[in-house]
């Protein structure tokens, strides 16, 4: 019960997924020792524990690992440094003054005063798709990630004949996984005219198994009473309205939804952190500091990343910055807001507060070929970069050198996209 009295910690990290563990390691290596990671699950790793497929770590470790292996590498780094992880512990509340209320079975409920906090809670699956489909409400409808947990961690098959709505990466990965375990995946329906998933996943998860990817298609009706017996699908027009004459019934007992991820920010809200409507995560500066002083955010709780490697990279940025903050080295003197033109849907960070080089991560709202990304202050061009291809599913980066940031006189800059003639 000794921990209960230990109510002050220099750095509290919420979440032991790739972002949180990477933040802890970076903070330790940057000079502080008093670090506590709080994790609600019974083991560290976050969502990586159920992502048994390969494709992780090429960027971070220069080898291709599975999710559990990638998590294990970070867990080893955390353990080697003797950083404390509190497992099976839930954070109930964070105040803007950085008082963290936690609960677990051994210690009950208590509070920790944190010098700095790093939010690394990850994201959850969007369930909205299910609510908008007319028809009955039978069992057999799962989010793709839930199905992934059943198959990979508990050994249950959610069903035998499957339709997948949404072509996000988790849906594609589950199409392959269910097929390998003996299910028949009849179709993947994507309402957009392009897939949100990585090309390699479309090749290796769908094309390898002759699973049709139906672009500009959606599920318009659910059938069945106790259990799903089928779905009606239809092609959609340019306004994404179903075309009546294209309606088609597909018999299936399972519908998986892979329709996007949403940063999980309930705790951030309790700490008065200002959220960005486009990302669903906090608004941050390049140090990943939120609008609440001393509270940082990284990984999928900040914005949904394509790769766990990138979430871990962002964790390291937040980890080092939190230490700098604790040492009084971060003193933002100005705030330059970065506006987007709509074609560039969002950037992270949303504003610039320091004087060093700043790498902007951004996503576009459509597929663009042969376009130029530019950053401007008023009519003045700061930076332009040509791009062969841009897609909503692939996060892009552009780096503003310190010298250019120094030349900015106002308090806003703009990032935009022009298609080349």
């Amino acid at each position, binding site marked *: 019960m000794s921990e209960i009295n230990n109510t002050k910690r220099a750095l509290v990290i919420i979440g032991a997924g790739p972002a949180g563990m990477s933040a802890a390691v970076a903070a330790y290596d940057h000079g502080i020792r008093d670090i506590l990671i709080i994790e609600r699950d019974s083991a560290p790793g976050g969502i990586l*524990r159920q992502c*048994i*497929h*390969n494709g992780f770590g090429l960027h971070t470790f220069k080898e*291709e*690992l*599975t*999710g*559990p*292996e990638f998590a*294990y590498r970070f867990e080893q780094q955390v353990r080697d440094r003797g950083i404390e992880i509190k497992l099976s512990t839930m954070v109930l509340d964070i105040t803007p003054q950085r008082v963290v209320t936690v609960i677990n079975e051994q210690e009950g409920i208590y509070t920790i005063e944190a010098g700095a906090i790093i939010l690394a809670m990850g994201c959850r699956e969007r369930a909205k798709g299910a609510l908008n489909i007319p028809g009955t409400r039978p069992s057999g409808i799962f989010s793709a990630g839930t199905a992934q947990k059943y*198959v*990979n*961690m*508990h*050994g249950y098959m959610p069903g035998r004949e499957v339709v997948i709505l949404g072509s996000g990466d988790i849906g594609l990965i589950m199409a392959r*996984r269910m097929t*390998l*375990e003996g299910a028949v995946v009849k179709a993947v329906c994507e309402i957009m005219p392009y897939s949100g998933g990585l*090309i*390699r996943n*479309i*090749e*290796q998860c769908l*094309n*390898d198994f002759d699973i049709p990817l139906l672009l500009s298609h959606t599920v318009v009706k659910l059938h069945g009473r106790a259990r799903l017996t089928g779905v009606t699908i239809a092609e959609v027009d340019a306004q994404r309205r179903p075309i009546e004459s294209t309606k088609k019934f597909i018999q299936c007992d399972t519908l998986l939804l892979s329709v996007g991820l949403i940063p999980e920010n309930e705790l951030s809200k309790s700490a008065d952190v200002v959220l960005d409507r486009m990302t669903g995560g906090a608004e941050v500066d390049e140090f990943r500091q939120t609008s609440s002083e001393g509270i940082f955010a990284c990984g999928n709780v900040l914005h949904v990343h394509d790769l766990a490697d990138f979430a871990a990279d962002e964790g390291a940025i937040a980890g080092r910055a939190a230490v700098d903050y604790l040492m009084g080295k971060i003193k933002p003197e100005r705030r330059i807001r970065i506006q987007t033109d709509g074609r560039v849907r969002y950037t992270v960070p949303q504003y610039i507060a320091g004087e060093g080089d700043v790498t902007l991560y951004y996503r576009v709202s459509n597929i663009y070929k042969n376009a130029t990304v530019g950053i401007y202050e008023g009519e003045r061009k700061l930076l332009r970069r040509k791009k*062969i*291809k841009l897609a909503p599913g*692939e996060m892009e980066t552009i780096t503003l050198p310190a010298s250019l940031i120094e030349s900015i006189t106002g308090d806003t800059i703009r990032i935009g996209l022009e298609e080349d003639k």
Partner: protein
Amino acid sequence: MNRKLICIVCPKGCEISVEYNEATKEIIKMTGQACRRGEEYARAECISPTRMLTTTVRIKGGGLLPVRTDKPVPRGLMFECMKAINRAEAPRDAKVGDVIIPNILGTGSDIIATANA
């Protein structure tokens, strides 16, 4: 035989058309590739495609252990490999990297644990 495939070597995603002879495993004609690596990718995909296989294996006494092939296996053998893995059991003390099934189906690839049991 003719095949169209999207190159996954880089984000550009070239659409490559390949005409090849399945019996002699010879490439007759290839168009659409922008680089040498793309050409090699398309050749391998048509002549001898291989894949990493990731799945789970039962742990003796209960629970699941995530596993993978340590090297890619021929794509056509994936379902046969799954059958063999689903018949196997991992020891309760299996550790990350332990070989659970050596040389699966004579492919030269081992099935290894990707987590501690």
